[in-house]
């Protein structure tokens, strides 16, 4: 069989996890202003990306045909 290609990295869960981490670090107020602003920019960018992914998505249904695997 030809297995479908792996999903585009990073995964949704990874993106969300990174976002949470950015918020936590920003909230800790331990970074200097420059780092904070850099993180903020990254956060905004990731937020935009996951939002886009969510709103643009349409479920895909694929079928592995019987002859694709041994019985």
């Amino acid at each position, binding site marked *: 069989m030809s297995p479908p290609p792996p999903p585009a990295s990073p995964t949704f869960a990874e993106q969300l996890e990174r976002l949470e981490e950015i918020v936590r670090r920003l*909230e800790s107020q331990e970074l200097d202003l420059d780092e904070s*602003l850099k993180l903020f920019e990254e956060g905004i960018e990731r937020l935009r990306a996951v939002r886009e992914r969510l709103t643009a998505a349409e479920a*895909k249904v694929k079928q592995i045909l019987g002859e694709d695997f041994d019985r």
Partner: protein
Amino acid sequence: MGAGSVDLFAAASAEGAWTVGEVTRRARAVVEAGLPPLWVRGEVSGFKRWQSGHWYFALRDRTAQLRCVMFARENRRLPAAPADGMQVFAFGRPTVWEEKGELRLTVLELLSTEAGGLWQLAFEKAKAALAKDGLLDPARKRPLPGYAQRIAVITSPDAAALTDIVAVVERRWPVAELIVVPTRVQGDGAEAEICAAFRAIGRIAGLDVVIVGRGGGSKEDLWTFNSERVARAVAAAPVPVISAVGHETDVTLCDLVADYRAATPSAAAAAATPDRAEVLDHLAQVGARLGRAVAGRVDLAGQRVERSLDRLAGTMTLRVERHRHRLAALSGRLDALSPLKILERGYALARDAEDRLLKRVAQFPPGLAFRLRVSDGEVRARVAGP
């Protein structure tokens, strides 16, 4: 027959006597003609399964017993063999087994009269085997993915269960990709196909979760999901398995072994996916926190700048004060160096007509007219002649 014959021994000859085969053949014909296929009620005793797969046992009551055989092609349909002592109904054809000269029931159908019957017995047996291998241990259950991207569905390709699953995933989490592995879900071959499907999903890259199941049906229809083989295939799956077989009330072995049991295929799809609306809400909250956090950070920086400026201003004032003192001291010294002060001490400056300072004797030739600057004015003078 020679029953009315005077000579009882007349038939005791090679010509007159029946052979064993003739008697049993005749008995068989009589029994089969006189006793049509019928249901017999009794207790199972001396059960044996032969290599051939045929079952041999006796049915007994308090006063009699009846030898029974149930051939492999008939007993294959049953979930389990009956146990000795079990009360059963057997449907079969009475006959005579000529080789043994035995009255026998060729059983075509067997029902246990006990609660749940053979199905329950088979279920309990398989369940015990699975439990022995630790496959029912709750600690084995894996958590379901929070944001599944690839979901495999092992089910019948043209049944409502699949339609329901697709609809729920499309509504809740269209981010996901559904990979349908079609199998039969009941009858001959279903068991093998489902096991093969579980092997096949092991080759799907990036798979997050598997849904296996079917809609409701009779106990016999759902039986595939009580197969020990299927249960073991579920247990061996490389990713978490959600099982949804039949309705709420039907709990199968597949359900017990799976990482999560859903009441229906729709519920399975919901368990496999987050709700997009909720995730968007959550993202909005994350965005708000991000904004607040960075605003807080900028405020903090502003406060720091203010504090720094205050400190800076403080040091500047100090510095200015120090400079002022230094200036005062310097101006005092300047004052002391002023030529007028020197002249006040009695010195005088001599200048010629061109206003050049005259500092050495050689600059005073005899007769030279010059001016002397003293503390309060000028005096004209001339060098005395030789």
